[in-house]
């Protein structure tokens, strides 16, 4: 039972990582917590559903369309809304709340409140030594790990990535060095939104797609990035896996409610010892 719990938690953890990666990237560059990230994730799931189920495009193509669409949406959000309130916490929060309501209502009106389902990439269950895990969850682990590596390579190995690092360290100094911080911010939010689309699409195939699914993403996403350290990609991975394992293992010996309590208690304990999070400041 314990090892099945570990397997369950590990796969859940990578789902949390997928959700948190975009959020931590946006915070790292723009120093703003994009509270509407959950709704972007929800729109991404709906975009995949629409492209795949309604338009009949194959699943890979549907994900491609959703990623491009949400990347553009992210850039537009930054350019038209968040940029003018850069550095101002309260207006940014108000904008995000407005976006939450707008996106939820748009989804209800456009797609309906019904639960929908994205076809699974892959059917069946992987069984190893009596431990069971559905192949679509295995895929979420592979995709999550792949995206993390790709993001890391992008940030370390490209000019834009280096510009993002510079902007995250000191926006004014980066500007003085010739970095176009507006473009960096736009691209960051675009990539963050695209990552949310991937997470939403994967979750929509494992569970369901509906207009209020974003609350799960923002709750878990925030917990992960606070635990792992705001702005740290490595921290998002470690934080996601820790919370996933807590959910998977604690609930075996108690309840899922207790697992949530233990998870949040762990966050508080770690923050007392290290207020910037496990890898904050990275």
């Amino acid at each position, binding site marked *: *039972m314990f090892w*099945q*719990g570990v397997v*369950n938690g590990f796969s*859940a953890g990578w789902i949390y990582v997928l959700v948190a990666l975009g959020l931590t990237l946006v915070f790292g560059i723009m120093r703003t917590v994009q509270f509407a990230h959950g709704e972007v994730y929800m729109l991404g799931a709906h975009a995949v559903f629409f492209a795949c189920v309604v338009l009949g495009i194959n699943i890979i193509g549907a994900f491609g369309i959703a990623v491009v669409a949400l990347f553009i949406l992210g850039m537009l959000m930054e350019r038209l809304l968040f940029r003018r309130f850069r550095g101002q916490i309260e207006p940014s929060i108000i904008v995000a709340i407005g976006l939450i309501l707008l996106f939820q209502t748009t989804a*209800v009106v456009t797609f*309906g*409140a*019904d*639960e929908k*389902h994205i076809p*699974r990439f892959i*059917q*069946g*269950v992987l*069984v190893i030594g009596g431990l*069971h*895990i*559905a192949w679509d969850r295995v895929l979420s682990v592979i995709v999550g790990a792949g995206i993390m590596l790709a993001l890391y390579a992008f940030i370390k190995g490209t000019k834009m990535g280096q510009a993002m690092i510079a902007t995250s360290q000191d926006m004014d100094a980066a500007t003085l060095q010739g970095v176009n911080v507006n473009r960096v911010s736009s691209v960051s939010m675009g990539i963050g939104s695209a990552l949310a689309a991937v997470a939403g699409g994967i979750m929509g195939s494992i*569970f*369901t797609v*509906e*207009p*209020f699914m974003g609350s799960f993403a923002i709750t878990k996403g925030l917990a992960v990035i606070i635990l792992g350290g705001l702005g740290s990609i490595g921290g998002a991975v470690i934080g996601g896996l820790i919370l996933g394992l807590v*959910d*998977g293992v604690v*609930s*075996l010996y108690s*309840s*899922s*409610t207790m*697992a*949530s309590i233990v998870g949040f208690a762990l966050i508080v304990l770690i923050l007392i010892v290290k207020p910037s999070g496990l890898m904050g400041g990275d």
Partner: protein
Amino acid sequence: MVKKRLFSPMLVSAMGALMLIGSVISSAAADTVKIGSIWGLSGPGSQLGVVCKDAAAAAAEWINGKGGITVGAKKYTIQLVVEDNKNTAAGSLNAATKLVDKDKVKFITGMNVPFQFEAVQTVTEPNKVVLSTGKCSNLIPKNRFTFSATNGFTVPMPGLYEFMAKNYPAVKSVAYSAHDEPGAQVVAKVGRDIATKMGFKVLDTVVTQFGTKEYYPAWTKLLKDNPDAVDIGISFPDSLAANVRQGREQGFKGPILSCGTGDSNVFITLIGKDYANDFIYAGFDMNAPDNPAMVKEIMKLWEAKYKKPFNLDALDGWSSVWALAQAIEKAQSLDVEKVVSTWETMKTIETPWGTGTMGGQKVFGINHMVLCPAPISMLRDGKVQATHWHKPDM
């Protein structure tokens, strides 16, 4: 002078005639009875709420099309006042308060989620407002104004267990999975009691968070005791489907029971054809040719009005209005006390599933549940199979 003398009496006569005609027209026009309609139109489970709200509206329109509710010499048109409870207890309380205080309704219909109508009861009972719910499995004598317009969730449960005992003789033990929600816990207890009476070994009950769709941890716990069958109780259809699917993914191959009544097509789509096996639940195949005539009529009305596929959950919404309308008409009064005392003694009441009767005295101590034959079906090989109709005895 002659013209002037003649003109005045003619004018008075004409005015009198007009007044007489006006009063006749106004008395022939239907009066209106305002009925509150509370459903969860947003938030988790809103799919169910929207379907039921639409069905309630269709029922009201159908009744009005037949002349409305006749009380004495008057005909009353139903005017539904719809409120969204956001699928929360607080939302339910707010909706009920607004309907009672602002809209002054004396009748409210809606909801088939226990914690929601329990919140509404805190307003309707003290204010003596009749509440006609979609389903209610915890009727109590002190809640005199609450009625369940359809079979409660627990009504078909003996039928589920009888079918399992007959068709799965190898099943000796049953485990339980139930949400941390009062109605779900009641259902789990009833299931355990039935299983005990029938000689099954009752294993642990695993509690899950209401609204969750992640059941892997619950199934890991359930499977440690190697149950032969698992009763997953009630939840929203998508959560039930996720529960079944994840149980199969975790390797469970035995029968899974649920007194949930979701649409079979929704179940098959969300569970997946590969895993839609040996799932026994309280629903039916809406495309079966021998379905009750009223179900077929409701489906036709639905498809004509809404131009979208029918959903079986709509029958709860329809029933909540139709049963109340019949009770008012039987009482021949809009007085709440008269409606209550009449409704609880009705020997026959029409339902989408056929003629029912008022029951519940044996189990709840109050005759406030509309009882009618309960369909039991099973998913096998990705298809729905009707098994039998369970006749409740309550």
